[in-house]
């Protein structure tokens, strides 16, 4: 019997453990449908703000060794527009990523999705390249606590907090979110980084500083998942540099109940979802695991 690769992230049940990471191909319901078909267990949207944002001028994404550097600037059509766009959704497991600076931003946005069929929210507390949102929120545990409490009181669906490495201890952010009743943690976002062109001496990204993603950050992300799962009793979604089923298993062993897939799509395209799902399934068969949950966090016992 083939093992079932469904997974449970707290109260969120996913048919498959591979989710689409936020900001990756994530602005259109049609694309979500295609990626769901391709094997994604859930689709996290591009982070949405109250109003539409154009984002930064190009270059916004470039390649670096073993990854990408991006400062897209959270370009997005705004929560109201997006909510309308997905209002016809019936079957696709969408998780809406939100970004904002104060409680009211989130309250406003959650209102937009009241009637939408979505699996949950992911609060982006960790975008490293846009001022006043993202990491600037995540680096302030008190603000995180306030926002999470408020969102939790208004949302009918589970709420996930996405953390990253900023200028404070990210474990304090996790703790604040946990104390405020968060349902799960996604770790990690991109890491602040930059590239300078040698010919012109110019920073290449128009925003100069952006976020590093891809295989380069994988060992850092695995470490964060391991640390969170060692210190807190909270479901975790692992993210950062996952390129194949072995990487996914590594994150699961570290303590993730599901994983998010991002940069690798640029290299392998969207077939990577089923490639990873199949790899996990075969591995489970070989190692006689019958459920993903049996594997979650077992690296901690050593």
């Amino acid at each position, binding site marked *: 019997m083939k093992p079932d690769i469904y997974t449970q992230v707290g109260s969120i049940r996913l048919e498959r453990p591979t989710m689409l990471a936020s*900001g*990756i*191909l*994530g*602005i*259109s319901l*049609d*694309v979500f*449908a*295609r990626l769901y078909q391709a094997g994604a267990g859930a689709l996290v949207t*591009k982070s949405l703000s109250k109003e*539409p*944002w*154009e*984002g930064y*001028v*190009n*270059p*916004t*994404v*470039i*390649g*670096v*060794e073993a990854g*990408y550097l*991006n400062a*897209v600037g959270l*370009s*997005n*059509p*705004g929560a109201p*527009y997006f909510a309308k766009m997905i209002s016809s959704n019936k079957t696709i497991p969408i998780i809406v990523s939100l970004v904002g600076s104060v409680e009211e931003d989130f309250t406003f946005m959650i209102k937009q999705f009241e009637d939408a069929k979505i699996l949950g929210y992911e609060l982006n507390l960790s975008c490293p390249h846009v001022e006043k949102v993202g990491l600037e929120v995540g680096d302030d545990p008190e603000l995180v606590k306030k926002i999470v409490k408020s969102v939790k009181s208004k949302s009918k669906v589970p709420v996930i907090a996405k953390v990253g490495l900023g200028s404070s201890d990210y474990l304090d952010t996790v703790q604040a979110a946990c104390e405020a009743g968060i349902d799960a943690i996604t770790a990690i976002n991109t890491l602040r980084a930059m*590239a300078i*062109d040698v*010919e*012109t001496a*110019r920073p*290449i990204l*128009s925003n100069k500083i952006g976020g590093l993603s891809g295989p380069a950050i994988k060992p850092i992300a695995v470490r964060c998942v391991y640390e969170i799962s060692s210190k807190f009793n909270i479901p975790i979604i692992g993210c950062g540099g996952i390129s194949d089923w072995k990487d996914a298993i590594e994150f699961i062993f570290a303590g993730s109940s599901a994983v998010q897939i*991002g*940069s690798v*799509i*640029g290299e392998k*395209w969207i077939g990577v979802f089923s490639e990873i799902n199949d790899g996990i399934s075969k591995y489970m068969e070989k190692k006689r695991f019958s459920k993903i949950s049996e594997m979650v966090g077992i690296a901690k016992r050593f």
Partner: protein
Amino acid sequence: MQRDFDKPTMVKIEKVIEETPTVRTLVFSDDVLSAVLPGQFAMVWIPGVNELPMSVMVYLEKGRAAFTIRKRGVASTSLYEVKVGEYIGVRGPYGNSFAIRQGNLLLVGGGTGLVPLMRLLTFLKKNDNVTVLIGSNTKKEVFFEKMANQILANNKHQVIVTTEDGSYGTAGVVTDVMEKLIFEKKFDAVYTCGPEKMMYKVVQLASSKKIFVQASLERMMKCGIGICGSCCIKEELVCHDGTVFDGKYLLSNKEFGYTHRNKSGIIENY
């Protein structure tokens, strides 16, 4: 030196060609871009200004490539104004390419949409009978007529220019000429690139005659790599699944010819 595919490689502009009062071609040396397939594009960094998707233009010398730019907004105008000796960054090539058919071929281009078609011409077989339709507003803005004739020197071929104001070639819009042509003659394939409304008409016309047709599309490009999602048209990503799509598919895509997304991802009408 190994090249990092997705990071801008700096190239020095070696030559600037004035095509029309608003269109210039910038020539540079680059082994990778000199050998791209027709329909493929590069992301072109104008340091300090912006980065734009640009079809890679042929330059008929080994190891060299070019971009042909129409000046429009700030970014394209800055690129248009790059001087000989200055550097721009290029990454790519990205995207798929035209499927090369044989026989009687019809190419319909408008403006800088001619760029991928010029490269396509260099891939055609000797026995192909090639018709190139070049659409323009006015005489002054016609370009690549000579280049098309030059590339096709050894083919049975015809280059037809149309101007909307009738100042040169056939008066009228390019799709009107096309309509007549496909009525008179059997074509094996039609290729088009240019304003989307024009391409929409070309695809409709060709499809009505059941001719194989492909169009190369433009959408807002940020990454070019297939990760940011900004270039989507329905479920397709133009930078990865395109830029070239079959007409058959395009007619089923309700956004084609009507809408595109702006920088924030909001759908706007053409």
